[in-house]
């Protein structure tokens, strides 16, 4: 038989006792989540002498979880000291299984000082015992106006037969479920098992009408840019970056029915060989200037509210095109949403280890048909 992985949690003091910096760490993150030149990491190395190997190894939560789980179950290092996962079932499981290092908040002074209030009281990891946010973002709709000659405003547009075979949806069961639920008018966070079934039906209808070309993870951007699909579920910051990097003209909208708000969080696997270096980097990224740098490039919502002021100041100091860009970032509701904007955003459907059995297969059956 295969042993169970009940979570027996070591106390933070026990975990950190005797651990020291090794001068290096391995950081696994999502693509398009840091300037390709990695200036923040260079700054970190300069300041601490710690070398960072950065790997864009994470393209969706379930796959990455599936990949690291067996190693964590063996008590083996997974090859990364610092990883970034979204709030959701996989993160819940990691915590429940006891695979994450308990964070020593004495080592996170920047976080204590700079993190926004809502980021210190998350539902999925109250008290930030295991995670601190990296960035937040919105799942909405992106479309390519080169091919779509009207404005796209609603999730209902993803069901418009006019776009047969030109719609991209996400493969991640939770993302997919959210949009299915919004489509049938249910708030994901309040959904019941019956709602899930109805949402799955709606999604299957969309699929069987031939609207969906494929179910994507991070790879929806390339076909969206080249016209293989015309519109897709998308992550807010990605679209800005793609436009900036590739000169594309994609548009991102928060649909009328609402989008979803998520947070990607940094965490340290309990088997990590370099946890001290990892937690140092965690804290370094909460330096307000660093957070502003990061935001300037990735255009996701930073967990450090002060980043906005810093960027606004930089915009004033900058000239010409750069100023314009910075102003755009500072003014974007997608990077710095107002309270009203937040109202339009929904939380994730809440999946627990108990009801996962009835959730995942339902939506997996939609994407893996």
């Amino acid at each position: 038989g295969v042993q169970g992985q009940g979570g027996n949690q070591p106390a933070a003091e026990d975990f950190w006792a005797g651990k020291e910096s090794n001068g290096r760490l391995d950081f696994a993150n999502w693509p398009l989540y840091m300037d390709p030149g990695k200036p923040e990491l260079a700054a970190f190395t300069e300041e601490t002498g710690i070398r960072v190997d950065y790997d864009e190894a994470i393209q969706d939560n379930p796959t990455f979880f599936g990949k690291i789980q067996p190693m964590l179950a063996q008590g083996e290092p997974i090859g990364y000291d610092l990883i970034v996962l979204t709030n959701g079932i996989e993160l819940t499981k990691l915590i429940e299984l006891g695979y994450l290092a308990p964070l020593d908040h004495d080592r996170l002074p920047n976080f204590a000082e700079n993190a926004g209030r809502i980021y210190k009281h998350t539902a999925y990891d109250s008290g930030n015992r295991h995670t601190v946010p990296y960035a937040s973002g919105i799942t909405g709709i992106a479309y390519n106006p080169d091919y779509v000659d009207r404005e796209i405003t609603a999730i209902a547009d993803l069901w418009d037969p006019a776009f047969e075979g030109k719609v991209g949806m996400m493969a991640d069961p939770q993302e997919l479920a959210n949009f299915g639920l919004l489509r049938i008018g249910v708030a994901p966070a309040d959904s019941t098992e019956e709602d899930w079934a109805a949402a799955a039906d709606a999604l299957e209808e969309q699929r069987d009408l031939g609207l969906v070309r494929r179910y994507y993870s991070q790879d929806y951007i390339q076909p969206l840019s080249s016209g293989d699909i015309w519109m897709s579920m998308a992550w807010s910051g990605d679209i800005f970056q793609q436009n900036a990097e590739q000169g594309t003209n994609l548009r991102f909208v928060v649909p009328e029915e609402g989008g979803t708000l998520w947070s990607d969080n940094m965490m340290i696997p309990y088997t990590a060989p370099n946890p001290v270096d990892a937690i140092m980097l965690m804290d370094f990224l909460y330096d307000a200037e660093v957070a502003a740098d990061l935001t300037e490039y990735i255009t996701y919502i930073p967990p450090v509210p002060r980043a906005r002021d810093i960027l606004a100041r930089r915009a004033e100091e900058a000239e010409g095109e750069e100023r314009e860009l910075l102003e755009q970032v500072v003014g974007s509701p997608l990077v710095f949403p107002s309270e009203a904007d937040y109202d339009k955003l929904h939380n994730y459907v809440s999946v627990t280890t108990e009801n996962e059995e009835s959730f995942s297969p339902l939506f997996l059956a939609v994407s893996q048909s």
Partner: protein
Amino acid sequence: MAATTAAEAAPGRRPAGRRGRLAPYLLVLPGWLWLAVFFVAPIASVVSMSLMTGSLTAGFTFTFETANYTRALGLYWEQILRSLAYGGLATLLCIALGYPVAYWIAFHGGAYKSTYLLLVLLPFFVSFVLRTVSWGFILADNGIVLGTLKDLGVLPGDAGVLNSAPAVVFGLAYNFLPFMVLPIYAVLERMDHRVVEAAHDLYAGRLQAFARVVLPMSLPGVFAGVIMTFIPTSADYVNATILGGTHNTMVGKVIETQYLVNNAYPLAAAITVVLMAVLLAGIFAYARALGTEQVMEVQAG
């Protein structure tokens, strides 16, 4: 005649002495061990895992749980059948294209036979994943093929081939075509050309000589080719993932997801066992009729 060929004599002639009798066992022992531990035991272990129950958190225990199989079949019969269908179609496509190519090289390749064969094999020097990904780019809706045709007005603007069943079958056939060409070539090349002349001599025209003599004599090669294409194409998921769209999922992908993403090991194992049973049952029936040695001989080229 006194001259027995080396091949006949070989297995019979053995060095004398007790040490000589032990020699074959010493020679095969390392290989046996390796295959026993890393092939036979894993197969046993996947079968045993398919009969377990449990969850990632609670652990999995052997309970002789046959419900995994009913679930596997109930949930994924469609993907299993589709995989067999795609594999079958790709195999047919491989025969349709590979046979004439093997035939032409073997019979008309002349001095360049080995060069042609090499050309058929050369693509293998490029990673299978990379070649498949390249097709994804080449076949993009506005890529170099379709885009050009659209610009020329040959194709309507919204035409596409990517993310469809034909694209998957096409990719499978592409990737496994050389496995069909090789064994057929090996048989045809070894074929005594005089047998074909004899058929012509006995009033058979080109078509008749082919249908009555060349084709039946080359069937062992076709069989070997079928084994070497049908099994891997049916179980592949790389092509379906890169080139497929909705309703194109193959069972390999399901197995991969259940193992590597969902960590639903018993269910995954049950699907695996079902796939293995379906494929191997067919193959063994088939190999029995032909003799595994002969098929492997052909595979060895």
